[in-house]
Each structure stands twice: as structure tokens, then as C-alpha cells.
């Protein structure tokens, strides 16, 4: 039973590596942020699976909650920060 979860965790670890391609070669800054966000989202699932494998799910669930919250806050802060101005110095359009 646990072996099945180990197999699924390994498959998920391979899936997590795939968006790193977009982080490394992404043409624009936003592609890199998108890849980093995708990796962070998938990592929450992997943390829960590792909790099952180590038989300490009660502890790893708390870690997963903290990771999800930090991922969300980090995404929002980075998306707010990287509104780059236009090359001609024109200020960016304000949000409503």
C-alpha cells in the first residue's frame, strides 16, 4: 500500500521538474514567474504525499498549509511588484 504512494510521489516529483524548463528559458519575466508558481503549487501535493510515506501526515499537513499560504502571498506580492513601466517612462495603467 505504501509502495503505491511512493510510486505516485516519484511520478509527481518528475512532473514538478517539468516547469523548471520554463523558469530557465522563459522568454519573458512573466513566464519565469509562471513556472515558479506552477512548481510551488505542485509542491503542496508532494508535501502531503511525503507525509503519507513517512507516516507523519499530521505534521506534514501543517507544513503544506504554510507552504500554500506563502506561495499565494509570494505570488501576489511579486505580481504587484513586477508591473514594469513602459520603456518611454509612461506610468503603468492603474488598477481599479
Amino acid at each position: 500500500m505504501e509502495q503505491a504512494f511512493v510510486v505516485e510521489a516519484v511520478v509527481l516529483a518528475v512532473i514538478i521538474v517539468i516547469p523548471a524548463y520554463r523558469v530557465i528559458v522563459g522568454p519573458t519575466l512573466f513566464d519565469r514567474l509562471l513556472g515558479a508558481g506552477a512548481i510551488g503549487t505542485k509542491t503542496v501535493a508532494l508535501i502531503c504525499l511525503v507525509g503519507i510515506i513517512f507516516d507523519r501526515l499530521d505534521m506534514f499537513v501543517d507544513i503544506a498549509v504554510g507552504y500554500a499560504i506563502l506561495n499565494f502571498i509570494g505570488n501576489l506580492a511579486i505580481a504587484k511588484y513586477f508591473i514594469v513601466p513602459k520603456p518611454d517612462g509612461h506610468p503603468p495603467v492603474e488598477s481599479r
Partner: protein
Amino acid sequence: MNGFDGLALVLVAAGALFLLVGSIGVVRLPDFYTRIHAVGKSDTLGLVLVVLGIAAHEGASLTGVKLVAVVVFVALTNPVGSHALVRSAYVSGLRPWFKGEPVPEDPTADHHDDGDDDGDDDSAVAEPGEDRR
């Protein structure tokens, strides 16, 4: 261990399938907006399925309730994060790719990585609202 282990395995496998589809979409699709279109939805559904499968394995306990709370939190916040990133890109003037144009990622087509690493590939910068249709 309880009676839901088969259900747990099936749910986790289905969620891993959705996560795999999202990862392939991130790598394969032509521009930023299509990529986040792929990853914003399928990642949310895949993560919800995986965590629900783990909750089925855990059963009714405090940990199971926490897992359901993770599901609710992710289902609320992941689309919000995707939307914030898309809005940031659009306000910054990143131009969408339209059908029939050359794919912007084609390495033989033009000149990315102009070195300043600010992400605006200067041919891809346009006024926001100029090409709104």
C-alpha cells in the same frame, strides 16, 4: 488504514494526470497567456484531486479536516494568483500572441533575451488597450 485506500489511489493518480497536463502545457504552448491558461486551471483541479485522495486515505480525523481546508484554500487562492500575474503582465504591456503570427518562442524567428532581463522583449511591448478586441 481504512476502506478508502483504493479511492485514495485513484484520486491521487487522476490528480497527477491533471498536474502532468498542466506541466506539458507550460512547456508546449506558444505564449505567456496561453501557458497560464493551461496551468491556472488544471493545476488547481489536479491539486484538489490529490489532496482529496490523501484525505480519503486519512479518513475522518483532525488531519482530514485540515486537508479539506487545504483544498478549499487552494481552490480559492490559486486562480486569484494566476489572475494577478496575468493582470500584471497585461498592464505591463505584454502583447498577446494572435493566431497566424509567428510563434514568439521560435528561436530562429527573433531576438529574445536582450540582456537587461526586465522581461519586456521590446518587440512584444504594446500599449495596453491598443490591441483589445
